[in-house]
């Protein structure tokens, strides 16, 4: 089945001369959760804005479910819902009015039952008559989501959806995103909270300085680029790493009580077993050991460091 969203050779240079995107190509599969990661100013929001029709691109093509975003903009845009980064709502409109406005704007006939369901799902039903200006930050964020969902989109862009949102609400939003995915909605999210991408995404794309530097299945990425770390709590402190263990590039903590051994996930011979044998041979005894995988965040930081 063809991709739901296909971005091909898209570039954007602003009137100031700043190039925000350089020949970006990306395919988003139907029904997946795709996390687009990148530092501030990397081009995430520009890319989303181009796909949604908010910013004109300088070159390249974009299709949504086969519809060109320019030639067939009505069909393309009807399929997309956007929750932007900033809380931008007409402050003087009521929750009910503004969500129905969004539905009408996208050409959908009035459907009070559906709008009620969206508001109830987002715990906004009690506030339906409240003006947007009276809502808390978290509620405004949910209202933005309700507006984006009001016309039943098939592709949902979430640009930093949980920025400034408390932990409980963040968990609720993650649950909502998973429910949407179960309903067949494709979700593309940008986030600063990489744990969010780690918890939710099927695939991850990394963008830096306007270029996509990596697109990978999240699990494969963590396996491929991730590192493992083994920490040993020693019975007695060491002054230095014993001679016979110098091949392992061990790190000794300043107090001499902990040895850390880092190795690649994919390495054929991580040497954990031989390290333990060599430790015994060198007379180093340990009380406890634990291992951990590197997080997506660490992978992300390492990727950006490798960029020239």
């Amino acid at each position, binding site marked *: 089945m063809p991709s739901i969203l296909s971005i091909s050779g898209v570039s954007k240079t602003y009137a100031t001369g700043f190039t925000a995107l350089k020949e970006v190509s990306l395919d988003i599969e139907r029904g997946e959760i795709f996390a687009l990661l990148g530092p501030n100013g990397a081009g995430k929001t520009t890319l989303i*804005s181009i796909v949604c*029709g908010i910013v004109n691109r300088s070159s390249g093509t974009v299709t949504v479910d086969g519809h060109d975003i320019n030639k067939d903009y009505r069909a393309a845009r009807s399929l997309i819902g956007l929750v932007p980064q900033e809380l931008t709502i007409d402050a003087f409109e009521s929750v009910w009015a503004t969500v129905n406005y969004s539905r009408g*704007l*996208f*050409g959908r006939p009035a459907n009070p039952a559906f709008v009620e369901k969206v508001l109830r799902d987002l715990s906004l039903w009690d506030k339906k008559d409240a003006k947007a200006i009276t809502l808390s930050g978290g509620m405004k964020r949910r209202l933005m989501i309700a507006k984006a969902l009001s016309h039943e989109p098939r592709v949902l862009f979430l640009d930093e959806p949980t920025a400034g949102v408390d932990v409980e609400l963040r968990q609720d939003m993650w649950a909502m995103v998973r429910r949407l995915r179960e309903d067949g909605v494709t979700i593309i999210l940008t986030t600063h909270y990489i744990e969010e991408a780690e918890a939710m995404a099927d695939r991850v794309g990394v963008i830096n300085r306007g270029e996509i530097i990596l697109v990978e299945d999240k699990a494969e990425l963590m396996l491929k680029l991730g590192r493992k770390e083994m920490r040993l709590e020693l019975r007695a402190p060491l002054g230095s790493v014993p001679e016979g263990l110098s091949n392992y590039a061990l790190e000794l903590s300043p107090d001499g009580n902990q040895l850390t051994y880092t190795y690649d996930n994919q390495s054929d011979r991580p040497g954990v077993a031989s390290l333990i044998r060599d430790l015994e041979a060198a007379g180093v005894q340990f009380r406890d050991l634990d291992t951990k995988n590197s997080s997506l965040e660490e992978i992300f930081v390492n990727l950006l460091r490798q960029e020239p």
Partner: protein
Amino acid sequence: MNPRAAMNLRAVWAIYRVEMARAFRTVLQSIISPVISTSLYFVVFGSAIGSRITEIDGISYGAFIVPGLIMLSLLTQSISNASFAIYFPKFVGSIYELLSAPVSYLEIVIAYVGGAATKSIILGLIILATASLFVPLHIEHPFWMLAFLILTAVTFSLFGFIIGIWAKSFEQLQLVPLLIVTPLTFLGGSFYSIHMLPGIWKTITLFNPVVYLISGFRWSFYGKADVSVGISLGMTLVFLAVCIAIVAWIFRTGYRLRN
């Protein structure tokens, strides 16, 4: 929406309804305030000056200024309604929703300009009703009165829409109405006939487009005009065409919207 549909009429209606709702939400500012200022114009100009100038072209001074007063409000309110309507979402950032919706440029213009023009036409009719409380009114050409009212409201709402897109600040939003439109309206024969001006000023005044609007509108009331009604209508249509051309260019290039 049905992607094959020729027009997204639901979107036009959604925008139009929000614009009209704003007018009713701010009824004091939108309706009552212009009515009070018009009444004050009657007190100051109609009574104070009218006691010295009894008639112009055989029309009592109080009745003579009615078309000009309506035009004054129509022009300023059309511009401010439309400029604010499109500038406000730009200012708060909610314009993203409009730009990402399956809405054509034509639909956006119809909705915003339609909303702004409707409000100022309603206001014009309210001012007309208010004026009838002060002076006896007679409308010789009701069809043309309505035609001039609608044409002017639409033209200046388009002009306001352009200003709203061009403006980068609230100061710029007020700049053109305050520094250009209001002076042109006051100097456009709202309160006098241009035949009362000395020679050179009469010629200079003919470069003021508002003269033609007021003159044509006054003709629809009393059958008397400073300039021929055909020229008035022509000038209004020329200004309308210029505004349409600028709006078309704005949308084609994405000027200050999609850049």
